[in-house]
């Protein structure tokens, strides 16, 4: 593994490598306030995501809006810098293991020295010169809104041929012929060369975007909701096209979408994200057959089906996605989970999340003294308000799991002290070979739906 790669090596021809490898990727956006734009907090859009994309495979990335899936797509393609962690391009398995060892703190000094070398050669924000160009050529992106992502002042021939010109691969007639070739690959033709994007339908514009991505003969394409703006019959055309191209060019896809039926159709492996973290990952068919995380299960149950029994049993989820600037402790999903247990990380903020909508409950709140995320004292203006909070916390107004996680609940005059059992944050763990999920429950329990 040398730092200077040969001119056109293709990771696709070497299956022991990951085309793209994400290691603990974090992307935090600053929240600025006041006249001096002081940073007052961080929105944790992506908060520690790791997975690999291997040559020729499709990895599906699903989640609700605001879960960080598009931000992750932009980090992976190098459009946004990461806050922590790294995205590695064309990473050999051996180097990948080494990086994992470093992360877990079990590496030797010699190995640490090797890491600097690996990072310079593979980490996309450390790549320079030829290495960086190679990454750019081999990692392309297709965006959701084809109208916004194609320059309205440019002709199709310029849009698709741009990268060929930039990389000095072709010019003049040859360039035009290459563009025609690319257009034909996506089911369009010579007659479309000298038109502007607005002259095409949504499906055709998306084809142009795909042709543009194919121009540099990439190894991996990041598809950010490529069919969300399209009708179902056009969507079918585009999905078929993407599958055909994948077979022809041995492309790897990162397929970002919120549409579960599309991802089930397209993806080999599935990564489910919730609030900036991976809640579950595994082979697509396995995940659909038996979700190992209650969130995945809720997503799948909410999805309307075109086949099978027409049921109205869709459950959906209560509440809203919590603020990503202050994500819940423990399992991030516990605030909306139907199967939450006492050990899911209940904390003081959950008292507010649960009860803030009760009229007048917190009107008399005069002070909060936080000892930790799990313990705090709330001081009210009068004892009656404090007593009201205690009685609600001690009733069916809050989930049973939350009540049993409450180690201490006492009122001294106008002050209510609450303390929850401290639990560590729930990390991804291997539930089955090739499957990971971040849930305290076992797959069987998730399947049976305890506490429901």
């Amino acid at each position, binding site marked *: 593994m040398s730092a200077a790669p040969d001119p056109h090596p293709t990771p696709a021809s070497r299956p022991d490598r990951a085309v793209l490898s994400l290691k603990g990727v974090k992307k935090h956006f600053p929240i600025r306030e006041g006249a001096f734009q002081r940073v007052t907090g961080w929105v944790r859009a992506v908060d520690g995501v790791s997975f690999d994309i291997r040559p020729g495979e499709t990895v599906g990335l699903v989640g*609700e*809006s605001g879960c960080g899936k598009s931000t992750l797509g932009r980090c992976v393609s190098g459009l946004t810098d990461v806050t922590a962690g790294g995205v590695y391009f064309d990473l050999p398995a051996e180097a990948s293991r080494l990086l994992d060892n470093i992360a877990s703190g079990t590496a030797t000094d010699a190995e640490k020295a090797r890491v600097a070398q690996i990072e310079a050669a593979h980490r996309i924000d450390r790549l320079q010169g030829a290495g960086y160009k190679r990454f750019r050529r081999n990692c392309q992106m297709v965006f959701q809104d084809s109208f916004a992502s194609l320059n309205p002042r440019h002709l199709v021939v310029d849009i698709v041929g741009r990268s060929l010109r930039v990389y000095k691969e072709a010019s003049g007639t040859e360039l035009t012929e290459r563009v025609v070739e690319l257009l034909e690959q996506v089911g369009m033709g010579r007659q479309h060369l000298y038109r502007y994007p607005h002259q095409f*339908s*949504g*499906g*055709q514009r998306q084809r142009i975007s795909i042709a543009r991505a194919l121009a540099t003969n990439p190894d991996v394409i990041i598809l950010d909701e490529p069919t969300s703006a399209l*009708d*179902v*019959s*056009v*969507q*079918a*055309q585009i*999905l*078929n096209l993407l*599958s*055909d191209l994948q*077979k022809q060019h041995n492309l790897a896809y990162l397929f970002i979408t*919120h549409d*579960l*039926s*599309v991802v*089930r*159709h*397209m993806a080999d492996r599935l990564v489910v994200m919730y609030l900036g973290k991976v809640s579950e990952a595994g082979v697509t068919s396995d995940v*659909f057959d038996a979700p190992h995380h209650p969130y995945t299960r*809720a*997503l799948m*149950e*909410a*999805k*309307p*089906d*075109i*086949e099978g029994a*027409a*049921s*109205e049993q*869709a*459950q*959906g*989820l*209560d509440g*809203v996605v919590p603020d990503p600037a202050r994500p819940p402790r423990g399992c991030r999903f516990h605030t909306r989970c139907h199967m939450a247990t006492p050990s899911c990380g209940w904390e003081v903020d959950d008292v507010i999340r649960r009860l803030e*909508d*009760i*009229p007048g409950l917190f009107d008399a709140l005069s002070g909060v003294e936080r000892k930790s995320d799990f313990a705090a004292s709330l001081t009210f203006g009068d004892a009656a308000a404090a007593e009201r909070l205690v009685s609600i916390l001690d009733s069916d107004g809050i989930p049973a799991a939350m009540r049993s996680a409450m180690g201490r609940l006492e009122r001294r005059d106008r002050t209510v002290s609450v303390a929850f059992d401290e639990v560590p944050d729930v990390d991804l763990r291997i539930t089955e070979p090739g499957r990971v999920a971040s849930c305290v429950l076992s797959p069987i329990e998730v399947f049976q739906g305890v506490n429901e």
Partner: protein
Amino acid sequence: MMGHLETDMADAVRTAPATVASVRDLKVHFAAKRGVVHAVDGVSFDIRDGETLGLVGETGCGKSVTGRSFLRLLPVPPGILAGGSVTFRPHALCEDCDGAGCDACGCTGRKAVVCPSCRGQGCATCDGTGAETIDLLKIDTETLRKLRGDRVAMIFQDPGKALNPTLTIGQQVAEVFLQHRTDELIELAGLSPETGGALRRFARQDHRFGDGILLSLPPFRGQRRRIQAALDKMVARALAETQVPNPASLMDRYPHELSGGMRQRVMIAQALACNPDLLIADEPTTALDVTVEARILELIRDLQMRRRSSVLYISHDLSLVRRICDRVAVMYAGRVVEIGPTAEVFRNPRHPYTRGLLAAVPTADTPRGGLAAIKGTVPELVDPPAACRFAGRCRHETEACRRFDPTLEPVSETHAVACFIDHPAPEGDQPSFERITE
């Protein structure tokens, strides 16, 4: 004699067809530079009392235009109402049972309003049904204003755009009551029904110069506050119906402070505030996440059941329509090509376009890359020729399809389709599902 007349009227209304609205040969065209676009070109269907009718189709097939024509929300010009009618039969609480459900109203608790010109005997204005029939395309704007939001309401696709960003939620929902429920409001405020002048104008959102000063003077100030309090109570009740937490605090917030799902709940509260007979839902969940979508659908369904409203549910999502609609009408290029009970249409689609749409949805068993896409694109609707609109994309077309225009004909008692596969073509080869022409 009087009694005899009354029985007659009851009979007439009872036998009236249970349709809440009928669209007949509706044509809506748009004047464009390249010619006249036939966006909706001869659409006919009925919405039955208490049912959910799904209107599905792809972008540009005219489904939203059809929905908007119920409330005449189309820009005219460039829009041209080129013909047809949209008739609507308002319903009222059954006076025999006061909503409890009796024989006279078929246990629904609601009854069609008796036609004012023939008193239920059946005349030309009401198609001989004896029920009041209003042509929504012909009535004057004043009458339409009274119906909009009261008897016919609409939920729009994007609640971020449909809500006014400069008004609080409370102010926006209150508008419905101020426009349509002035009397009820005055009664709830404990004022005499004869209250007039500035106070009534206040309760009707009809401000005149000087009213502001007048209502801030002592005798009126208190009464105005009582009306305001009554209004807040009605708004809170309407919001509470949509299961929003803490409606009172929600009323003081602005749309941008709410999540998409919450905004859509506010829209639903607004639309259902006056118990409309007909609700037009134009893709109400398209902008929402799947988990939130499930909740919103459940909510619409639940509220509709309780009020026995009819719903025209416009959507491009077949799986969703399948889940919530009783009947479904499939639109293509400005026409209804197939209509029937949801289960039947999905089990045995008779139009090649419906079949194509269903096959294009990825399922668990479709091999990758093997989706059955419909070839080609939707035709331009500028001066369409007399031919099947789907000809050119259809796998089964023959010469007859390119020369004649099939009309919507029944294939069974409940199921109708516009295709020569099930109906004899005027001349030439008969298309069939067995024969595939490429």
